[in-house]
């Protein structure tokens, strides 16, 4: 597994832990009614598990496992995936932060914009690697 995939997958596992803990907190609230304000964390729970865990894991695993090229760099332009990794995580943090503050439209928009750029970088990287294994 390449070093970049190790970083991406480990961050996705951390988001899985955080998102699950928040989810459990919300489910406990339904059961015990101990802290109604925890509902404010519902968008954060969704963001962390959809973008932080599932989407990020798919990016990390696909960078590792998609067919490689016959000559160096065998996984194509790695810088695009580094940029995608950084922008995606800044975007996720902005979205999470925006869910906790009032008048958050600009912050949420900024977060989604960074996520979009991240996914475009990822798509630019992955597109030529979606090919038969035997091709160079």
């Amino acid at each position: 597994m390449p070093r970049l995939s190790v970083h991406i997958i480990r961050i996705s596992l951390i988001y899985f832990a955080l998102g699950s803990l928040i989810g459990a907190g919300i489910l406990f609230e339904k059961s015990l009614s101990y802290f109604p304000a925890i509902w404010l964390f519902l968008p954060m729970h969704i963001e962390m598990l959809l973008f932080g865990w599932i989407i990020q894991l798919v990016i990390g695993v696909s960078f590792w496992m998609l067919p490689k090229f016959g000559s160096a760099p065998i996984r194509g332009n790695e810088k695009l995936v580094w940029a995608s990794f950084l922008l995606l995580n800044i975007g996720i943090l902005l979205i999470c932060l925006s869910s906790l503050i009032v008048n958050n439209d600009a912050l949420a928009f900024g977060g989604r914009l960074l996520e979009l750029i991240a996914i475009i970088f990822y798509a630019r990287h992955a597109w030529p690697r979606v090919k038969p294994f035997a091709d160079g």
Partner: protein
Amino acid sequence: MPLLSRYFIKAGIISFVFSLLLIMTMQARPIFQLWDGFLYFQPVFYHTLLVGWITQIIIGVSIWMFPRHTRENPRGSDSLGWIVFIALNLGLLLRIIGEPWQMMESVFLPKTLLAVSAFLQVLAAIGYIFLIWPRVKGK
């Protein structure tokens, strides 16, 4: 494919079919005047799809395909893997029963099911992370 991965993936497929049956039934409710209780199954649908199907497939495939833990013990602790499998699926099952029930009548039993479900699901997530973390590594 190891036995544990087969269990995760097959349970994931069952959950996927269940999710689609559930959402189809929810959509059919106003047309065929089905039980009003189906109104309360929306959160269950999201969780059977995203936890029961997608997350469970990820867990099953990663246990199978990620780099070996060690040569002697390639997949790490099998017993921890089984604890994760049971906790995730039992937690989800309790949620399927408890969440709509709690929304219809907020009494002791469904509330208890939800608390146990929350504990089991977070136990499964943390257990999986402990299981897979050492296998997220270079050659």
